[in-house]
């Protein structure tokens, strides 16, 4: 309280504190008397001095030699310094979070500006060239082929801008999932079909190592297809000289991961693993690959939103994504998705699968 002993002796709580506060202290005293248990409080009491004060009070019951209650012993510790340090730390952390948010916004703006600038420049040059031709030679004298080629170029550049904006929207907006029973193997196969040409161009050999039974979960097949396609494209681009992409699926049983994740039987997950034999990525890059606008593919080759959007989709499915990589040996991505608990038995999975095959 910051007062000398002489001013404290013989006084009660109500002599120092407003009634409400003194009543609260007295309530604590009664609680200690009735329960016999010690009580600790951390409070900022109103004091007669001007300085801020935080105290920790410990109250314990004091009994005489016969075991009768003789009073309460209170220990009060001035913890103002500790509280101030905590407040300062909290304030420093808030400032840090704010700074990180600003840095992210800055990266976003720089990324968008950079990526949109190139197609915009292409559109401007095309339009300027065509306008110049029309002015100099007259619209009727220009070969229709020139019009078509110019407009096709404008269309391609506009589509690029559209793709970038779509990626941004997908990144910033919560994705609305259209969930239904989904055959994971079918989604992987469809993604591979769509990317067949790209896989061939990159001379990538795809090995499917699928679980022997059907894996059916409740998911948005289109969004999952987007994730799988992103991972397949990334794998292909990581193997410019060709290589192997192994896609393995399994129903994850409690095992090593169970010790890591404290997983029980009810938390079974479907695991889809994409392992390439490509260049691999450094540990530093690995820590940034899910960040928006981060890309290892070089300027102009990628917007750097694929993995951050994929991560958002997986997160919305209640799943997780795992990455490991060794420079020069390859990279593995594992997508883990929770099994719909209503469909945990293999029998149900097979029944659903058969129904799907029959086109019902």
């Amino acid at each position, binding site marked *: 309280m910051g007062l000398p002993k002489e001013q404290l002796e013989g006084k009660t709580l109500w002599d120092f504190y407003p009634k409400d506060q003194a009543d609260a202290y007295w309530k604590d005293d009664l609680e200690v008397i009735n329960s016999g248990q010690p009580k600790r409080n951390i409070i900022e009491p109103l004091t007669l001095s001007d300085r801020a004060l935080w105290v920790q009070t410990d109250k314990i019951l004091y009994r005489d030699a016969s075991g009768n209650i003789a009073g309460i012993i209170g220990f009060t510790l001035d913890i103002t310094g500790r509280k101030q340090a905590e407040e300062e730390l909290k304030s420093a952390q808030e400032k840090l979070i704010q700074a990180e948010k600003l840095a992210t916004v800055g990266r976003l703006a720089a990324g968008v500006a950079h990526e949109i600038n190139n197609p915009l420049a292409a559109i401007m040059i095309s339009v300027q060239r065509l306008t110049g031709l029309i002015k100099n030679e007259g619209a009727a004298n220009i070969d229709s082929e020139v019009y078509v080629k110019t407009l096709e170029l404008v269309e391609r550049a506009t589509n690029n801008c559209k793709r970038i904006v779509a990626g941004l929207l997908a990144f910033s907006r919560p994705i609305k999932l259209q969930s239904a029973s989904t055959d994971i193997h079918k989604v992987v196969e469809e993604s591979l079909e769509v990317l067949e040409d790209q896989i061939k161009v990159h001379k990538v050999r795809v090995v499917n190592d699928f679980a022997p039974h059907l894996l059916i979960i409740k998911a948005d097949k289109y969004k999952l297809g987007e994730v799988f396609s992103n991972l397949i494209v990334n794998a292909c681009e990581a193997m410019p000289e060709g290589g192997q992409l192994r896609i393995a699926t399994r129903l994850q049983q409690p095992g090593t991961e169970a010790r*890591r994740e*404290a997983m029980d039987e009810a938390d079974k997950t479907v695991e889809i693993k994409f392992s390439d034999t490509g260049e691999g990525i450094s540990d*530093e890059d690995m*820590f940034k690959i899910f960040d928006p606008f981060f890309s290892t593919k070089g300027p102009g080759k990628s917007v750097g939103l694929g993995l951050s959007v994929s991560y958002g989709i997986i997160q919305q499915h209640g*799943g997780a994504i795992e990455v*490991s990589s060794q420079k020069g040996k390859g990279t593995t991505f594992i997508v883990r998705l929770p099994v719909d608990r209503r469909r945990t038995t293999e029998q149900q999975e097979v029944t659903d699968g058969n129904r799907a095959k029959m086109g019902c």
Partner: protein
Amino acid sequence: MATEQRWDVKRGSKIFSALSFGQVTRLIAKGLLKEDDLIWHSGLSGWRKAGEVEELKPFFQELK
């Protein structure tokens, strides 16, 4: 031949796995791995805050 212990790091629903101890300490030094990130290696019964894992404490201390 004894294999090097693998370390996994979890941040939200992202897991960066199969890192070596050297990689983990380098990531701490570069400020990429934070004390609040979760970490696991064989022998631990579940995820732990990186700042609370004994082997890593000296490396976080160095940053302070």
